[in-house]
């Protein structure tokens, strides 16, 4: 193996079928096939539809990725695949495909954590030109997850500081967009409409912000760095009803702006709090919602005020993709970890402490 391992990464945890290839920290291809269009009429990701799409997309995506990168399977040093967290049936397609690829090529296979891969993408594309910085944290916001992580060492030490206890932030956007009749996906739709609204028009709740959940730095409450978005959706629905009952025209822009402000306010305030209290001075913002204008704006503002350097990878590297899986895989190979073998199972709720699955046959 050359000093920089050539790694092929496979991602299928939600609605993107991704195959990425990296050589160490150099991105060779980030090929993605999305089934998003098939979910539009349902207003959210339908797991069975996503799984069916993964089956149809896998080999064509693999072929396209190899062509785009100009490499052959014979040249690949290792294969990496998302083993979790994610949608069970969707994960099963990528993992089965990755194992078949490992059997057919004889290459070592690494089963890795999707959330940590969102951080691993930071080694690519000049995101951090000097390499991953010290005292690193990651705020991941997407349709499937909302987490704040402390990253000691990408291959060995990642800790979950907080996460949503119900809906993911992106899910809250989708549900609220549906209530407001703005279509799917909800994030861009609400962000667009919110530009013309007053974010202070309606005060929506900031979930889990009360003292009983927060506690203090010395005596943290049970949800100091956690989020909850299900109450927010209900609150939006209630204000829509109130306007309808009063026969008033719905102030869609104000509601969208106020909703977005509530989401972004509570995400960034808790994330920055977690950073301050865990010595995090570099924060990576990842996940599909990282493209959200207001989230980036407020995150930049609050990180700046707290002396935290905020970094946002390119949008194509923030949404789910195979390059991030390959990037983390390469770091794990360089970290000297053993491959995962081919007998591991998928884990829809894989914890971030499980960065790469151990080989069941060599423990």
């Amino acid at each position: 193996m050359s000093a920089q391992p050539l790694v092929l990464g496979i991602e299928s945890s939600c609605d993107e079928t991704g195959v990425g290839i990296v050589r160490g920290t150099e991105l060779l291809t980030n090929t993605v096939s999305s089934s998003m269009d098939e979910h539009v009429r349902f207003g959210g990701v339908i797991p069975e539809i996503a799984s069916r799409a993964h089956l149809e997309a896998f080999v064509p995506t693999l072929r396209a990725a190899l062509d785009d990168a100009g490499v052959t399977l014979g040249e690949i040093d290792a294969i990496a695949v998302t083993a979790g967290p994610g949608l069970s049936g969707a994960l099963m397609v990528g993992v089965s495909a990755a194992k078949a690829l490992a059997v057919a090529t004889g290459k070592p296979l690494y089963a890795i954590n999707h959330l940590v891969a969102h951080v691993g993408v930071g080694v690519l594309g000049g995101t951090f030109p000097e390499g991953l910085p010290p005292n690193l944290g990651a705020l991941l916001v997407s349709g499937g997850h909302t987490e704040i992580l402390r990253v000691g060492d990408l291959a060995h030490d990642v800790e979950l500081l907080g996460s949503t206890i119900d809906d993911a932030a992106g899910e809250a956007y989708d549900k609220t967009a549906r209530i407001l009749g703005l279509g799917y996906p909800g994030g861009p739709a609400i962000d667009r409409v919110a530009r013309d609204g007053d974010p202070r028009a309606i005060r929506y709740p900031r979930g889990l912000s009360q003292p009983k959940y927060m506690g203090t730095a010395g005596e943290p409450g049970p949800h100091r760095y956690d989020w909850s978005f299900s109450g927010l959706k209900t609150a939006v629905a209630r204000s829509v009803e109130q306007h309808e009952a009063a026969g008033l025209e719905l102030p869609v822009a104000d509601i969208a702006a106020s909703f977005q402000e509530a989401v972004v306010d509570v995400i960034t305030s808790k994330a920055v709090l977690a950073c301050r209290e865990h010595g995090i001075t570099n924060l990576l913002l990842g996940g599909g919602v990282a493209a959200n204008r207001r989230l980036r704006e407020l995150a930049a503002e609050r990180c700046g005020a707290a002396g935290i350097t905020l970094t946002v990878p390119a949008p194509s590297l923030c949404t789910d993709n195979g390059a991030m899986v390959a990037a983390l895989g390469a770091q794990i190979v360089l970290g000297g970890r053993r491959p995962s073998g081919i007998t591991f199972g998928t884990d829809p709720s894989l914890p971030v402490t499980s960065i790469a699955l151990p080989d069941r046959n060599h423990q």
Partner: protein
Amino acid sequence: MLLLALDTSAAATVALLADDTVVGRFSSGDTRSHAEVLAPAIRQILADAGVTGADLDAIVAGVGPGPFTGLRAGLVTARTLSFVWDVPLHGVMSLDALALAAVAAGAVDAGSTFLVGTDARRGEVYWASYRAGGSQDMDVAGPPELLDGPHVGAAGTLPPGVPLVGRAASLYPSDVVGVPAFAAADPDAVSLGRAARSRILSDLPLLDTTPLYLRESDARVPGPRKRATA
């Protein structure tokens, strides 16, 4: 003719066939671990036989009908192996495997009509009707002829009084007339491979590997909003 066959429409099963000889075979004990056990089984069978992917004449995959998640694990595996090894890939309806197994075992009469039924969960069965050839020897008679199906439905809706081969017989004994020796049988890769071989030798067409889901995704398009909090 060296065939690697796999079927994941019920259990995860793999077989390596050299003409009619079974060189290696595997069957999982359950129907929910396909993504875990399938690839190791394939690797083991090929290694034990001293065969590489490039030696294969074709890969044969059971295209269902069967529970979706397991079915997909098998199909994406077969498609990926075929792509990497550059070996032809054929699909065979999974119920064909059971039909062939029953005829080869003499469990149904030559020339007779019979049903094949498997577990579709949710109180339903996947089923199809077949006519057995005039001989038990598939090389002479060809594979059983598919008359109708595949379908999915309640066991009580199947053509009455026709002998049924497959697990549906033990799941719904009061609705169907089970063939005792095959009342708990599931599609198996050995029979699937033989069904493919029989079709190739008889110059009959094979399928591609489009899965036979037979059911929609269950996704519902949300209706118009009545009350915002609904």
